[in-house]
């Protein structure tokens, strides 16, 4: 498989972007068509040539050493898809302050179409996942589809058509050459230097934790492939995988499915992130139609920085996403210890317990690390509060169970469930609550005589938000992290509308 240097990929893209929107649409369609036709037939001489529905992104991916984080192309195949490229470019833009303004990418009209792309609740996490979507699908496919070429070679395009594409791509890459260096894409945070880096890094740490989990969980063979359609044959498998991914991505446009998708993607992300080579390999797996998976580019060593930071390319342009990530402040979870407890004995033998039966019929126990409080009832049920993340809540609950075990009860750890998650964030501008309650009357309740904040009951996802005049927002009622992110992404455009009196 030919793997073009990054410059060429950028040139091709540059040419692409210089077209008018309808020409771009035609271009993409033709790429897609040719990709579909040629899928799985033979190795492509030119890695740029679109042999898969994902080709424009592939171009960029390949060209930029597969460090380019690309959202699932299947999502917005037609002009919308370009938007993500634009975004990716813009991301680079955002990160490199030295680079001059890049009107070519920034002003693409395709971008607005991304408004209908999946704005999941877990937009941030999903970015991680999506950008490595190539890896995601690949890991799902499992080892057998994994084909790694040994060399990176350039060869003459076998067909006339392909030549034209190659030229186009080369032009684009040449145009893009002045743009941000590819490496910066990798290292760039999504948000252009707005001071929200800590937030993004926080979301990444969440991912890191997921990564480790996935790492532990292990082999590709254990991955569930049941989502694949039944009529798969080996040759078509790749293609259908891509298509099914397409469907999945499209389905993901409804936020409701985000959470479902999140976990597998995160797993994939984890797998992808663990090693740079895996990352590139997986890229190649996504486009088996090209018949030769991507060869790890010379930039491969630079993939390792990926592990340390950067959020992934969001599907929407910077201007549309808020760039703010709500911080989780409290997690409430319950677990069943499955044995009757003697609360008096627990209160007697445990230093960190308090028990006042006249006031409340449970033992209140506290541990220092993670800093949490638990209510332990005589029936054996326990409520754990105060953790700042799901994993911490689980660890804390296990510690409480262990304490109860050590006190001599046959405690188990059944049905651990997160019941509520509370997050908060700051939009940094004042909000006209009176205006908001007028326009969103059916959802909001604003009684300044009772409470200074506006209580917004979002229907989808079912989250309650407390919105204050200073711009601080508290989100509660979530069972999953993605719901909080989704709710905030839903409310942010509404709040922006009330920014100015």
């Amino acid at each position, binding site marked *: 498989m030919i793997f073009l240097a990054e410059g060429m990929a950028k040139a091709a893209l540059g040419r692409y972007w210089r077209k008018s929107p309808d020409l771009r649409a035609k271009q993409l369609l033709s790429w897609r068509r040719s990709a579909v036709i040629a899928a799985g037939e033979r190795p492509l001489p030119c890695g740029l040539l679109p042999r898969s529905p994902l080709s424009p992104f592939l171009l960029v991916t390949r060209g930029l050493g597969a460090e380019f984080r690309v959202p699932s192309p299947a999502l917005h195949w037609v002009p919308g898809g370009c938007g993500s490229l634009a975004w990716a470019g813009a991301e680079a833009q955002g990160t490199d302050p030295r680079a001059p303004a890049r009107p070519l990418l920034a002003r693409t009209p395709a971008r607005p179409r991304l408004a209908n792309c999946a704005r999941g609740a877990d937009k941030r996490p999903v970015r991680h996942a999506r950008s490595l979507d190539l890896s995601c699908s690949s890991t799902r496919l499992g080892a057998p589809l994994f084909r790694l070429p040994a060399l990176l070679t350039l060869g003459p395009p076998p067909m006339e058509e392909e030549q034209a594409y190659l030229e186009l791509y080369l032009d684009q890459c040449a145009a893009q050459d002045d743009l941000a260096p590819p490496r910066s894409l990798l290292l760039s945070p999504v948000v252009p230097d707005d001071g929200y880096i800590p937030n993004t890094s*926080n979301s990444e740490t969440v991912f890191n*934790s997921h990564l480790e989990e996935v790492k532990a969980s292990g082999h590709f063979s254990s991955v569930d492939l049941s989502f694949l359609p039944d009529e798969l044959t080996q040759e078509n498998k790749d293609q259908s995988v891509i298509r099914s991914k397409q469907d999945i991505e499209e389905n993901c446009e409804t936020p409701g499915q985000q959470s479902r998708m999140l976990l597998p993607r995160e797993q994939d992300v984890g797998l992808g992130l663990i090693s740079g080579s895996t990352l590139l390999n997986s890229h190649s797996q996504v486009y088996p139609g090209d018949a030769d998976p991507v060869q790890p580019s010379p930039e491969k060593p630079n993939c390792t920085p990926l592990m340390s930071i950067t959020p992934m390319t969001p599907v929407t342009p910077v201007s549309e996403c808020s760039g703010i990530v709500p911080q989780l402040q409290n997690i409430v979870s319950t677990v069943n210890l499955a044995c009757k407890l003697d609360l008096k004995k627990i209160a007697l033998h445990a230093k960190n317990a308090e028990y006042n039966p006249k006031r409340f019929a449970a033992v209140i126990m506290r541990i220092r690390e*993670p800093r949490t409080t638990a209510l332990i009832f005589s029936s054996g049920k326990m409520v754990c509060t105060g953790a700042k*993340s799901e994993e911490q809540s689980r660890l804390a609950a296990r510690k409480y169970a262990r*304490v109860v075990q*050590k006190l001599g009860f046959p405690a188990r750890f059944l049905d651990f469930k997160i019941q509520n998650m509370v997050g908060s964030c700051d939009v940094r501008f*004042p909000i006209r609550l009176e205006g908001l309650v007028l326009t969103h009357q059916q959802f909001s309740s604003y009684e*300044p005589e*009772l409470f200074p904040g506006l209580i917004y009951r979002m229907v989808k996802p079912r989250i309650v938000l407390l919105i204050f005049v*200073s711009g601080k927002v508290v989100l509660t009622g979530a069972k999953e992290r993605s719901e909080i992110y989704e709710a905030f992404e839903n409310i942010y455009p509404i709040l922006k509308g009330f920014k100015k009196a």
Partner: protein
Amino acid sequence: MPGGGQCPDCGSTELVEDSHYSQSQLVCSDCGCVVTEGVLTTTFSDEGNLREVTYSRSTGENDGVSRSQQRGLRRVRDLCRVLQLPSTFEDTAVAYYQQAYRHSGIRAARLQKKEVLVGCCVLITCRQHNWPLTMGTICTLLYADLDVFSGTYMQIVKLLGLDVPSLCLADLVKTYCSSFKLFQASPSVPATYVEDKEKMMSRTLQLVELADETWLVTGRHPLPVITAAAFLAWQSLQPSHRLACSLARFCKVANVELPCPAPSRLQELVAVLLRMAEQLAWLRVLQLDKRSVVKHIGDLLQHRHTLVRKAFRDGPEGLEAGEEEEPREQCQGPGQGKEVARSPFGLPAGKRLAGPALLLPPCMLKPPKRVCPPPPVSTVTGDENISDSEIEQYLRTPQEVKDFEKAQAAREAAKSVSNPDVQAGQG
């Protein structure tokens, strides 16, 4: 069964008193034959005793209604009459109460809650008709706690799925101002304190609008803002005699309760007025402070829209825009006018901030009390090993257990000694 009547048709003795509209009739329950009718009192016994029967007892309207609900409905009507609400409000409030009573949660609620529910229904009715009634007023009338009231109010709004509009600020200003006892001279109100109602009300309204525009009203209880605005308006109408009067004294003279946040609202409002005063050339030279600015409130209010726009900016870019606008602005007033370019560096005293201030709610202008450090990156998986030592640190050693038990026993003994009567009662 009164008397020993027999139905002429079927001969049964099962005669029932039934009221047909306001006419009471004796009806046979077997065949339905109307035995007697047109009795002017509801029951024979009453008629016999020459007692008048009230309307509500003579009609069937309360037949299906429980006694507590009847009581509640009566309370609703009484409250509406006390507040002197139009009669239509009464019917609406009663309807809401009945609607609420259909829910089992309300039926089973405590009496205190049902009492508060009366106030909630009246409040909702008033809000929907834009009648300015604050929750504080209702709580005072019902002798209820604001917490209980708020809980019941939120519950009932959600339960009935009602759309309750916000409190209308302008109407509240008018109502509240009218309640001030400053419009006629009396032994408690000196002559210099008496004020014309219309003038004071219009000026208060303008000040409240100004406060609303400059983020002093959002998120806060409206009444303290109105009190502060009324005070400023009253002072500014005759500053020479009234500047010496404090807010607390003003409220006492006006026979109005001083709300707790009113002094801080007053300070915020005065700060806004001072900022606006800086934009007027002839006021800038006077170097006003928070007392002297009161004298010029009339001027400031006259041009409040322009002044607010110039005095405040939404962001850094507003600074340049404000500077540009200035030379083009028409400013009524004597003296230099706009030739005195307002250079931020040319201000005489270093007291005032150079350049327009940010137009933000006071909570955003104050420095944060404590800076929240970004949470540390945590790499917890939730499935880590828990070391025994970590758990042991939370357990008491056997010696400690014994000590603790001894201490507890001692405490119990001490408590029982101090409560001998309790012990005697138990013994």
